[in-house]
């Protein structure tokens, strides 16, 4: 185990995979000379050269499609789309092509492509640069969508994504790049499609992915200390496929669930999870599934409004308290909060 940042884990994994397999190469805007908008690819151009660390023009549809075409001929491109907002410019290539080529041609061609891209608000980047639109991709059969929340998973899921023969959207988050954690030294890939129970508990199931899985882990520890609550935390890790079994088994044990998401509430990832719980654990539920999501507005620039619109730790704790109060499971004095 080595303690490192999420950013370092991504960087080291990209480098290791490029050393392991010469078919792995990187493409994206400003990833070479500029070393990446978020410096994930720092030093790689110097080490591997322009053939394998390819600065592209600002043409998301063009270079993402080119990566798909290269993947069809057996290369294993890892594309960086500077932020997930810009992936909308490549939507046709991702949804109509990457996701379809294997099935539409009867299994004759594969697309072993990884698209790395960060989402996330809270940086005062305004409405067009702060979205969490992974749902658009998680909706599409043929794509795989993974969303690590820890440096260890950043490594294990990136290994899995690069070695997978299908197109994988690898969701990162601006707020996670500097977070630190222990990372195994061996290169065992994660299993795409499996959630992780990152904290076992019996009082409530708290579900999140990407940044909100990180928030969930923090909140669970905090409430264990402050309130003696025993919260089970599920990090989804994979949005497509979605590991419903792990969620259902947990809810059957805790009988209450709160889902955290950085995207918008209506039709969001949390809605799918709530529906799944209703389908698989209806008789076990003691309270409606509660969702904590971003306010349904184009995210404003001004800090006061931006902060109010994004789900905070406090929002999560309140949702947990209210859910537990509803079923009489809260153990601390309500009077303290009022």
């Amino acid at each position: 185990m080595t303690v490192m940042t999420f950013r370092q884990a991504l960087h080291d994994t990209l480098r290791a995979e490029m050393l392991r397999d010469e078919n792995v190469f990187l493409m994206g805007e400003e990833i070479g000379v500029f070393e990446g908008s978020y410096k994930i690819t720092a030093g790689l151009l110097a080490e591997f050269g322009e053939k394998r660390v390819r600065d592209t023009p600002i043409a998301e549809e063009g270079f993402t499609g080119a990566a798909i075409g290269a993947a069809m001929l057996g290369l294993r491109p890892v594309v960086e789309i500077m932020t997930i907002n810009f992936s909308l410019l490549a939507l046709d290539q991702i949804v109509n092509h990457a996701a379809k080529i294997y099935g539409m041609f009867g299994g004759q061609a594969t697309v072993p492509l990884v698209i790395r891209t960060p989402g996330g608000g809270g940086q005062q980047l305004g409405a067009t640069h702060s979205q969490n639109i992974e749902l658009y991709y998680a909706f599409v059969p043929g794509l795989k969508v993974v969303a690590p929340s820890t440096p260890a998973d950043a490594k294990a899921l990136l290994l899995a994504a690069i070695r997978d023969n299908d197109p994988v959207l690898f969701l990162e988050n601006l707020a996670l790049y500097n977070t630190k954690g222990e990372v195994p030294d061996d290169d065992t890939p994660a299993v795409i499609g499996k959630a992780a129970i990152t904290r076992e508990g019996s009082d409530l199931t708290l579900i999140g992915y990407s940044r909100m899985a990180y928030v969930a882990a923090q909140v669970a520890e905090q409430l264990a200390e402050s309130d003696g609550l025993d919260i089970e935390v599920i990090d989804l890790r994979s949005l497509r496929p979605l590991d419903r079994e792990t969620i259902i088994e947990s809810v059957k044990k805790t009988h209450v669930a709160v889902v955290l998401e950085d995207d918008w509430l209506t039709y969001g990832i949390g809605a799918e999870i709530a529906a799944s719980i209703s389908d698989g654990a209806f008789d076990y539920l003691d309270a409606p599934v509660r969702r904590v999501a971003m306010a349904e507005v184009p995210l404003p620039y001004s800090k006061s409004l931006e902060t109010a619109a994004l789900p905070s730790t406090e929002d999560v704790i309140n949702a947990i308290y209210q859910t537990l109060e509803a079923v009489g499971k809260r153990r601390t004095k309500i009077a303290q909060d009022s």
Partner: protein
Amino acid sequence: MSDQTRTPRKSSARADTGHTKAAKNPVPAVDNSAQLIDFYRQMIFIRRFEERAARGYTQALIGGYCHLNLGEEAAVVGLMAALRPTDYLFTNYREHGYAITRGIDPNRIMAELYGRVDGVSKGWGGSMHMFDITHRLLGGYGIVGGQIPLATGAALAIDYRDGDEVVMCTMGDGTTNVGAFHESLNIAALWNLPVVFVIINNRLGMGTTVEKSSAEPELYKRGSAYRIESERVDGLDPVAVFDAATRAVTCARSGKPFLLEVVTERLRGHSVVDPAKYRTSEEVADLKAHDPVHTLAALLLRENLLSAEELASIDEDATARSDAASAFAEASEFPAVSTLFDYTYATPVPNDSRRLPGQPLFGAPQPTPGADQ
């Protein structure tokens, strides 16, 4: 009716988007009679195959959209003749003729139209999405322009491995207005990729003319924005197309992309169901007068390269093979419902949803073989 094949227009004639009305070009000096006869065999087969497909459509044996290469036969065979078997082709949804000319078994092409298991894409693609890795047809694509970035990326993969193959990417005239076209030409030029972009300019995007959709209607000139060498050629003359395509492919093989505009005709509507009411009777008569298959047949006859009996025999053979393809397709099975989830992912993963409509999330039986229809 013009009874001459045409030669590619020289630069002085390039501003003309139409075909010369009375081209009276001399027959080429070199003896290309074997090539002409071969082109004719291929062209008449595409003609009869497409007519058979249209019939299959009206018989409701073929579904979805069905776009035919009728009128584009000379362009198709001229382009394909310029490729090596190891070269790659990306094309759009009007691709039956290309699949045939690349050498794919026509029975399998017709079976794909019929949606059967023996189809080139196992019944998953249909008319617009034919694919055959053996013949390096890397797809018909239904989204206008979607194939262009892919073809550019395939050329990138060739370049990455220092290969000597070339990618040809065909598209319609209307496609030159999508962003993917411009982004891809820019990338191909920046990175010196071995790709030939071919505009099949049949002068209509569905019903909209080139002049109404493209501010630079001389489409080959769009290459100049990316310093890509380009040329326009008469797409009703298979020899001219072959010669131009050969120049284009040679250029691409040397590591420079090329933009080739092939001016051709669409004899019928945009798809089988389009009656093309936007065309005047004069236009329709003109189309018939310039029919590339008839023109080539007349040339072969006039030059005593084939007798009327031989022409008729080739035609009958094409009709018979088209009928045989339909019979093969009709005899082929529909894909089993048990195979519905076989091609979602190439690398299996846990929790992949395999539910039929209406099945509950939990406790539903998996679809089993024999549950068809």
